[in-house]
């Protein structure tokens, strides 16, 4: 009997916690489906009386994101253009780093890794100004390569750690067998280690895609006017000071922006948790 009461208690708590976290999403969803008249008239919790997709259409292709009024569409494609290389490159480089640190153990490997990890704990904001100067001196500031390079740099500690820890679990004898078979640095990486890294590549991709997609400050500073990511454009949509606030359009634009990470969370929750665990255990 006691056990049952405890169980009911747990469920009550879980449901109320879920409700608490889902409520904002619910409000966003219903508001985005209402017309402005209906929003002004009713409660924010009420279901739409005459549901309309018009705000979504406006958010996607008509709303003003600063001077241009073409919706968040352009921002979406900018974000895709930033995220794809900013996911593939850090994963490849992190995998090579982790592989080299785990198997080839260069002189001072642990010191190198320690320094890299220390980099992960320095706030991004501290490094922005030096990076701006550096990229300006290189002549790439405010461009797609600049923002990809910045994501590559900031992704490196975590990507390296993920792969290093993953390869630490691979028997060293496998590497030795490949050495005896005549494999060199790149061949063992490409033909033996990388093909067996699928689980950790998925984890790394999830972390990197969500991280890059959700980034605001780096995109704002480094991407340049033509490549502003969706998060920056969303901010422009919502912070326009002229005219009435189009709550329904704002909500729709916000959901559109959050859609990619949201989809990744839903489709790969199991993997995502595993990635967090992989980063948490072992140093």
């Amino acid at each position, binding site marked *: 009997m006691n056990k049952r009461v405890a169980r009911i208690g747990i469920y009550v708590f879980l449901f109320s916690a879920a409700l608490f976290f889902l409520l904002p999403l619910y409000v966003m969803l219903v508001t985005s489906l209402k017309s402005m008249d209906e929003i002004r008239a009713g409660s924010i919790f009420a279901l739409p009386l005459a549901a309309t997709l018009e705000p979504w259409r406006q958010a996607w292709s008509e709303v003003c994101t600063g001077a241009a009024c073409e919706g968040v569409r352009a921002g979406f494609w900018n974000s895709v253009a930033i995220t794809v290389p900013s996911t593939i490159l850090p994963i490849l480089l992190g995998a090579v780093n982790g592989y080299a640190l785990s198997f080839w153990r260069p002189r001072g490997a642990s010191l190198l890794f320690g320094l890299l990890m220390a980099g992960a704990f320095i706030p991004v904001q501290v490094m922005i100004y030096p990076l701006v100067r550096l990229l300006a001196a290189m002549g790439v500031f405010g461009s797609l390569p600049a923002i990809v390079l910045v994501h590559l740099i900031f992704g490196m500690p975590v990507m390296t750690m993920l792969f290093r820890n993953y390869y630490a679990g691979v028997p060293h*004898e496998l590497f030795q067998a490949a050495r*005896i078979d*005549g494999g060199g640095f790149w061949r063992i990486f490409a033909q033996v280690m990388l093909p067996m890294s699928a689980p950790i590549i998925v984890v790394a991709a999830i972390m990197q895609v969500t991280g890059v997609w959700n980034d605001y400050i780096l995109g704002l500073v480094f991407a340049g006017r033509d490549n502003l990511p969706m998060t920056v454009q969303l901010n422009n949509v919502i912070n326009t000071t002229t005219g009435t606030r189009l709550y329904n359009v704002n909500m729709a634009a916000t959901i559109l922006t959050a859609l990619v990470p949201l989809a990744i969370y839903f489709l790969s929750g199991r993997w995502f948790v595993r990635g967090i665990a992989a980063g948490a255990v072992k140093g």
Partner: protein
Amino acid sequence: MSNVHLRKLCITLGGNQVIRDLDLEVKEGEFLVLLGPSGCGKSTLLHSIAGLIDTSAGAIEIGGKDMSGIDPSERGIGMVFQSYALYPTMTVEKNMSFGLRIAGLPKAEIARRVGRAASMLHLQELLQRKPGQLSGGQRQRVAIGRALVREASVFLFDEPLSNLDAKLRAELRRELKLLHQALRSTMIYVTHDQVEAMTLATRIVVMRAGEVQQVGTPSDVYERPANMFVAGFLGAPAMNFVSGELDAQGRFGAGPLALQLDAARAGAQRAAVLGVRPEHIRIEAGAALAGTVALVEPMGNHQIVWIACGEHLLSSIVQDTRSFAPGAPLAFAIDAQRVSLFDPDSGRAL
């Protein structure tokens, strides 16, 4: 086929000298077993021959050529690991041919070699499977096959049977011996299992704490151990040790246990440790020594009887089915021709 020659070899790992001034000659076509407890440096030695560990001093020669600074793949060796170390994403066929493909051998030659190894190891049916779909025994066969296709002159085995269950281990042990008889190549085999060492080796190297204790044929090492460590390490149950006195007439005494040894053993009076194998103690009525039955362990085809004699406890292997009651008195004899004598301080054979 080649011989392997180690000269004054030193290996330092993480600041510790694991192997010091080790000399060893492995003859061409020999099955040499490195035997010792874990941590004795036998695996380290094997890895250094493979070129997977750097040596700090001394030389390794394979087939008369100095191997210092030569890549593992260029040493003419094939190696089999304890954990099999198969490439998990490749099929059995790709696993075996990986090294040959790297070496850039023609396709026909690769197919010939893989086919030959597969038929020797009964792997033809499994060529398209991945390691995850194989049993432990099959995996180790593939690992052996991967070493075979290299057609190396020296094969190195690092405890290849340790991860298998007892039945499979015995089966693969026989296969390895047959393989050696068929190939006649030089094989160096690391194990801590004395049965593997005794059954496979043409010569055994017993190691302890980085030093060679004794090198010899299995019967040499078993019958004439160089010291108490070797004597105690080989044989199950272990050799019985009895501390006592040896007098000038070659008579050994330790309380109630007295034994007249060969005249050749006679010398000055001194303290000594007598070593007796359990199979060299006979329990028979009217024998000279008296004791009581302490414990009986039936082993199916034989039984081990533990005899209490004064303060000593001796194990004896009895091949028949006589029954012994614990506490009952018995008479026993020790085969004086086949005992060993050791110095109690150094542990060396006298």
